[in-house]
């Protein structure tokens, strides 16, 4: 068996190198992620593993008997997801050993996020870790590694101003809505799906004067519950397209496997309200709205990538903080690397 940390690697795709249209093809539901994690952990030579699946990344962290297992895992993943190996090779990245360790720390601190400095990723990583630990997919090494990465993220947040000046998707959506409608008190909002990001965006709009909100979700109970929390009404998911003309702002965050709104539907809707603009915020992955909807007159469509690039427009001003954060994480990564090696050596000698 090789040195334990010689065979630690991460394999994944993220917003850095993969466009939204390709990321959609790699998107997994929560159940699919759990299933994949279970199957990866059962692969020959894989000792520990964790899968992180968010709207911006899909990463497989694994501790194997040797680095050679990375290629086998790549093949297994493509086969399992019925994806062309070429596509995965074109967009996927991999890190090994200390580099992979540094990567985990940067992900947990939000440095690798699409909206640099965001803290949501830490919660998602903690959730993924908790599940992996409960299902015994992680062991001594990955447990220590991820727990230390959470601590490092906290240190970075407290010692740098990385989160300062960071703009949330909700705030950007509100600013864009103001550029389209001016005052929002007469705007009607429809929230499609009961996802957390969608809910936060709806709350941001409510805080800026929106009074009229409706929720529609595949599960009517979820829609009803969320509508009650937001002080709005729930509408039947089956016929939400018939009621689209009454809404000015549409927030889409469903887990639907394909687009729910086509160009034809929106063009028909806009004929009913030619003078009133329609603002669509598509937060779903895979996207809920066909990108060609953008060409419909008076429709303003923004997806996750658009909102994130707006959020990062003030990145230059925070560059100094990002560099400081990266230096702190490098120190943590090196210390952790040494600790893990020391433990491995002690385990071997005993």
């Amino acid at each position, binding site marked *: 068996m090789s040195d334990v940390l010689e065979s630690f690697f991460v394999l994944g795709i993220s917003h850095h190198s993969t466009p939204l249209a390709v990321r959609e093809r790699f998107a997994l539901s929560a159940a699919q992620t759990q299933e994949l994690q279970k199957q990866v952990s059962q692969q020959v030579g894989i000792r520990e593993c964790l899968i992180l699946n968010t709207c911006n990344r899909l990463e497989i962290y694994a501790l194997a008997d040797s680095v050679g297992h990375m290629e086998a895992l790549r093949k297994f993943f493509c086969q399992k997801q019925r994806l062309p190996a070429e596509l995965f090779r074109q967009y996927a990245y991999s890190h090994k050993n200390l580099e992979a360790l540094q990567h985990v720390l940067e992900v947990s601190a939000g440095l690798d996020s699409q909206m640099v400095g965001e803290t949501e990723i830490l919660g998602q990583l903690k959730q993924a870790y908790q599940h992996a630990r409960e299902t015994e997919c992680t062991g001594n090494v990955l447990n220590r590694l991820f727990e230390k990465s959470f601590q490092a993220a906290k240190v970075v947040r407290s010692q740098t101003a990385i989160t300062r000046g960071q703009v949330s998707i909700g705030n950007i959506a509100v600013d864009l809505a103001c*550029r389209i409608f001016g005052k929002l008190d007469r705007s009607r909002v429809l929230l499609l799906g009961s996802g957390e990001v969608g809910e936060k965006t709806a709350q941001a709009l409510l805080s800026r004067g929106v009074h009229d909100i409706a929720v529609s979700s595949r599960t009517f109970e979820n829609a009803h519950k969320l509508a009650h929390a937001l002080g709005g009404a729930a509408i039947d998911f089956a016929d939400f397209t018939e009621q689209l003309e009454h809404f000015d702002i549409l927030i889409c965050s469903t887990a639907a496997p394909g687009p729910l709104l086509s160009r034809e539907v929106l063009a028909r809707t806009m004929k009913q309200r030619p003078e009133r603009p329609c603002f669509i915020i598509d937060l779903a992955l895979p996207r809920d709205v066909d990108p060609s909807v953008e060409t419909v007159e008076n429709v303003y469509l923004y997806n996750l990538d*658009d909102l994130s690039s707006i959020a990062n427009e003030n990145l230059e001003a925070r560059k100094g903080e990002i560099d400081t954060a990266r230096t702190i994480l490098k120190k943590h990564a090196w210390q952790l690397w040494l600790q893990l090696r020391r433990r491995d050596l002690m385990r071997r000698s005993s």
Partner: protein
Amino acid sequence: MLQQIAMTDQNAFAIAAAIYGSSFLMGVITLLLRRAYPRALMFALLCGGFLIQTLGLNLRGAAIKACPLGNPFEIAQFLAWSLVLLFFIIGPAFRLRLLGFFTAGLAALLAGGSFTVPGWDRPYPPGIFGGNPWIELHASLAIFSYGVFAILALISGMFLIQQHGLKKKQFKGLYQYLPSVQQLDLMARRLLITGVLVLSASLIFGAVFWLNNHELVPIFKLTATCLLWFGYLLVLILRLQKKLVTRRHAIATITLFLFAMASLWPVESAREPVATPAERSLPTQP
């Protein structure tokens, strides 16, 4: 030194144009440096320019004993004055951001640009409107409606810029200071209605004169004015029927304003000064 500068109408027009120009320049610098837009200062500068231009028009009007609309220079000055006056009505009431900046730009172009062609300020005999108050009202209303269409074109331009920013996902710079597309679109509709009403009223007053003095109104002027009126009326009808909205509406109003501006010069060239009653009674020269 200031006391040595006589406040003639020409000086007043020049100072007003300089103030409009510097207001616009200040706006450009502020936006380029991404500083906070100085709304109050812009308003104050436009106020100053407007007062001085009013003084200039007043001096010119007293000299010619009529509304100063007798040559292209005066028309350009009156148009710029109407534009700024409309800004004072619309700007504070609807709080349209950057409207002052764009108004200053167009007013500087009209008021300052009229100085670049010396031939525009050609002299003409006093009482050009023949002492007929109806034709004077017709002329001032027509130019005022052009002022409405000028500010409509500005608002349509602002709409197109904002819409372009939103469609191309541009967030910073000029876009963040512009009013919302819905506000601009609504304002454009209101201005279109106002402009068509004012121009229609002007044409009604003009028609009263024209019915009694066919020979004094050049056919080119009549055709161009009627075409323009019909164009705006058609756009208004289509707009009210919701067939010409948002982007296409903005493009149509800008195009019509450019046509209005382009037709001003030939219309003015074709115009023969209206003879005063005294001149009309003079025997023709051999």
